[in-house]
């Protein structure tokens, strides 16, 4: 599996990662190698095998009563925010 610069730019765009021109060739190379490496999986016969999403069998998603269990701690949580005003998170203008 060999990726092109264009492929990697596209992946970076999907992943919302800015990748500089100078970083790009190294990612083209290493991502191509990783994808070639994982192609070994094609050798395994997986016909009639159920995909395994969870390491323990018979686990079900637990449900809880629909009641409030958490207290409001937004002030504490927002202390880590890069920009806050009046309890709101600030971001660049979204709608022109």
């Amino acid at each position: 599996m060999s990726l092109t610069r264009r492929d990697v730019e596209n992946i970076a765009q999907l992943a919302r990662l800015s990748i500089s021109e100078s970083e790009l060739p190294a990612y083209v190379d290493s991502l191509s190698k990783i994808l070639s490496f994982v192609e070994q999986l094609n050798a395994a016969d997986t016909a009639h095998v159920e995909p395994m999403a969870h390491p323990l069998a018979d686990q079900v998603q637990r449900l809880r009563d629909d009641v409030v269990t958490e207290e409001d701690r937004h002030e504490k949580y927002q202390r880590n925010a890069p920009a806050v005003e009046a309890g709101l998170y600030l971001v660049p203008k979204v709608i022109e």
Partner: protein
Amino acid sequence: MSELHHLTLAELAAGLRARRFSSVELTKHFLDRIARFNPDINAFITVTAEQALAAAEAADKRLAAGESTPLLGVPIAHKDIFCTDGVLTTCASRMLANFVAPYDATVVERLASAGAVSLGKANMDEFAMGSSNETSYFGPVKNPWDTKKVPGGSSGGSAAAVAARLAPAATATDTGGSIRQPAALTGLTGIKPTYGRVSRYGMIAFASSLDQAGTLTYTAQDAALLLGVMAGFDPRDSTSVDVPVPDYLATLEQPLAGLKIGLLKEFFEKGLEEQSAKLVREALAVYEKLGAKLVEVSLPNLPLSVPTYYVVAPAECSSNLSRFDGVRFGYRCENPTDLLDLYTRSRGEGFGAEVKRRIMTGTYVLSAGYYDAYYLKAQKVRRLIADDFARAFKEVDVLMGPTSPTTAFDIGAKVDDPITMYLNDIYTIGANLAGLPAMSIPCGFAGGLPVGLQIIGPHFSEAKLLNVAHGYQRETDWHRQMPSAYA
């Protein structure tokens, strides 16, 4: 009395209860050692001296009042992946370099209420992605056995801190070998419990179907002591398993006569250093002497565990790390022109090269048109690997083999080649894919560097693994060796 940092966690806890020394004395002793030696090995990102001394004073009061909970007053270190209320929690990333966690991880909370004293936050690979502790934003950690070598990763800071006797024990996490491989490379006892055994609440997520918290200690007894407090059901982690926690200390001394040990054939085939293979075989001979039976076991799909992991783990990583958007917490780029620019530059500048590589790998294997070929295929092979293990455990009680194909390697030796780096975890990843508990214990030295024996058991067999490890440690003293520069 030997020096305080020569004592195991169990010995320290007993010394505290007998009032031979106070928690404040003990805590000061380790804080002094951190101040003296941490500049050499870079094991800590944050040292919480003030909070540690306050916690030690509180523990001393509880001890004076006659309380005798098992960890009361003993100092420990936390991997910087665990959220600690009011304390910097960086995950060794520029992304979280200024993040002060607003709550405690369940692991942290449980250990604190048992009276353990946190000395600080241990260095690690960025977001636990790495096998050498070289991807940390805060610089590489050095192996106390030879400071030109890596300590392994991702829990390299936890391992180096304990190996250099800067802390008598540390918490750690293991997604593909991040407890066991550093344990092997630094001569420690490491346990990764069954998936779901220890709560993941407040443990910064990397690959949610693989991540599990555990410990790095000198002995299996110490691991039993710590794990007994850390393990247990937690409603705040949706994959926490509601299975009772046995008394791990109670079964440590059970005889090993009749134990059936499966030798993992595939682990001895290629890539394993000769001297390490010899030491592992010598360890197996010790078990035979104790009355265990050895049988060779083949897990034919196990060689596919590394490629399976490098689809599943990056896929989950790309999803988990999408929360870092520069809006609510974490790094934000300067002067974003619009929202997209804010997202892409905050993430591009906030994450290091290996983290970005894994996010992109994961994004690719989950993208439209490739999902079936990569992600679904890997999930199917994952089941084949898990089925191989399940079949083996019908025949044997535990599986054994090496933990790592090599001893600690030079800092810088593998950083430019991700595949070579990924293959460090060739023996450890299988247990994560199958959700099994596994340990690494020291079994000798090759060229002056520690070698680890890996023990893997069926789901929820932690008590058995600890018993098996302890039985070996009663016969040998590899686990009591320490690097002379830090003795």
